[in-house]
C-alpha cells in the first residue's frame, strides 16, 4: 500500500506540477509582458521557448526528486514499522514520524533554497535542486541499507518512467500555453494526458511493484523512444506558436 501510495503520489503530483508549472510560467510571462521584453532582445524566439521549457523541466526535477525522497522515506518508515511489529507482536505506531519525515524531505530542500535565496541571493531553483538531490540520494542510500538495493532497483525504473511521462506532458503544456489562455492550455494538456494514460499503465505498474515485481528497464527505454518524437512534436508546435506571437 505504501508503494502504491508513494508511486501514485509521484505520478499524480508530478504530472500536475509539470503541467501547471509550465502553464503558469508561460502565461504569467506572456500576460505581464516580460516575455515580450525578452523577445525584444537579440534572442531567437524558438531558442528562448526551448530554453525556458528546459528550465521548467529542471525545476520540475526538483519536485520529482523531493517526491521520490518523500516516497522512499515513507516506505522506509513502513518497513521499519513492519519489523518492529514482527519482533514485538504489537502494531507499531510509527506512521506519524514516517509521514513527518516524508514531508520534511519534500519541504526541507525548498526551505533551504528559500533561505539561501533570501539571505545570500542564491538562485532558488539551483539551491533547491541541489538540496533535493542530496536528500533524494540520502533517502535512497538509507533505503538501500535498510531494505536492500534490490528493492530500490525495482522502484527506480518506475520513477524514471514517470519522469519521462512528465517531460512529455510539460512539453505539451508549454506549447499550448504559448498559444492559448491558461484554461484552454490546461484542457488541451488534459486531453493529451487522457489519451496517453493507458500506455503508462500506472495501476498495473504499482500492483507489480507491490507484489515484488518490477518495471523492466527495457519498457522504460521503449517508453522513452515513444515519448521523444511526441515531445519533439509538441516542442516544434511550441516553436511555431512562439514565432506566431504578434
Amino acid at each position, binding site marked *: 500500500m505504501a508503494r502504491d501510495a508513494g508511486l501514485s503520489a509521484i505520478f499524480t503530483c508530478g504530472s500536475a506540477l509539470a503541467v501547471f508549472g509550465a502553464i503558469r510560467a508561460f502565461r504569467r510571462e506572456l500576460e*505581464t*509582458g*516580460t516575455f*515580450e*521584453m*525578452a*523577445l*525584444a*532582445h*537579440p*534572442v*531567437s*524566439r524558438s531558442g528562448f521557448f526551448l530554453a525556458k521549457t528546459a528550465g521548467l523541466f529542471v525545476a520540475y526535477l526538483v519536485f520529482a526528486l523531493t517526491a521520490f525522497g518523500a516516497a522512499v522515506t515513507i516506505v522506509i518508515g513502513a518497513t521499519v514499522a513492519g519489523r518492529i511489529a514482527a519482533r514485538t507482536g504489537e502494531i507499531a505506531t510509527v506512521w506519524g514520524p514516517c509521514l513527518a519525515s516524508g514531508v520534511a524531505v519534500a519541504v526541507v530542500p525548498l526551505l533551504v533554497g528559500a533561505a539561501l535565496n533570501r539571505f545570500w*541571493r542564491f538562485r532558488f531553483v539551483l539551491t533547491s535542486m541541489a538540496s533535493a538531490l542530496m536528500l533524494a540520494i540520502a533517502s535512497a542510500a538509507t533505503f538501500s541499507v535498510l531494505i536492500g538495493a534490490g528493492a530500490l532497483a525495482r522502484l527506480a525504473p518506475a520513477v524514471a518512467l514517470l519522469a519521462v511521462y512528465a517531460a512529455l506532458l510539460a512539453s505539451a503544456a508549454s506549447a499550448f500555453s504559448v498559444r492559448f489562455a491558461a484554461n484552454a492550455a490546461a484542457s488541451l494538456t488534459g486531453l493529451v494526458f487522457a489519451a496517453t494514460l493507458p500506455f503508462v499503465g500506472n495501476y498495473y505498474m504499482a500492483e507489480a511493484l507491490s507484489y515484488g515485481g518490477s518495471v523492466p528497464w527495457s519498457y522504460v527505454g521503449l517508453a522513452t523512444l515513444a515519448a521523444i518524437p511526441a515531445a519533439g512534436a509538441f516542442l516544434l508546435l511550441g516553436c511555431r506558436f512562439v514565432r506566431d*506571437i*504578434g
Partner: protein
Amino acid sequence: MNDSEDIVRLESVEKTFRDFWLRPTVKAVDGLSLSVRKGEVFGLLGPNGSGKSTTIKMILGLLSPSAGDVRLFGLPPRAIEARRKLGYLPELSYLHPFLTAKETLRYYAGLCGLKSGEAKERTAQLLEMVGLADVAGRPVGGFSKGMARRVSLASALIGRPELLVLDEPTSGLDPVSTKEVKTLVKALAANGMTVLTTSHLLADAEDICDRVMILDHGKSVAEGRVSELGTSLEDFFLAKVGDASEFRLAPFLG
C-alpha cells in the same frame, strides 16, 4: 540623407488585428510610411489609440505587419543582428518582481550577449547613472513606479544600443524625473544615438525631438521638423488631430 542612413524604414505598413476566427476587428495602422535617420530623435505623436505602440511593436518585431515592409538597420526586424543594436523601453515597466535591480540588469545583459565581466561593469555604471546604486540589491517588486521606470531605462541601455526605442518614456514620472529623462535623451542623442520615441505629452516631444510624425487612426497626418512647424507643437497637433469638441459636454453640464 540617403536611404542607407535610415535606421528604421516603414513602407506602406498596415496592421489589422483579428479575432480567434481570423475576422478583422480593428485596423490599427493604415498605410504608414516613415524613416528614422541615423543620429536623430524622432517623435511619433498621436492621441490614444492612434497606432503609436502598434507601430513601435512592428519595428521591434513583436508584431508582424499585415501588409507592407518594415526594415530595421536594413534587416527584417526579427533578425537577431538588427535587434543586437536596439534598446527598448516599453510603455509599462515589465519587470520580474522577485529579481533585484542588479539581477534585472544582469538578466538583460545576458540576453544581449554581454560577457560576465562586461555585464557586471555595465550594470554598476547604469545603476549609478539612473540613481539606483543604493537600492541595487532590493527586489524591483517593491519599487515605486518611478524607480521601476529607471530600472527599465537602464535595461534598455544595457546592450550599448545604436537605436533607443522609447514608448511613452515619461509616463508616470514626476516632474524632476521627467526632466532627468529628457536630459538623458538629449545627452544620448548628442553622443550619436538614434532615438525613436512616442508620446502624447507634446511639451516633452517639443523639448527632445528633432523630427515628429503625427498619427491619427493609424495614418500619418503630418510629418516634419519641430523647428519648421511655424507654431507651437500643441497648436499644430490640435489643428491636425482635432480639439475636445467631440466630447459634447453641453448636454451633461446642462
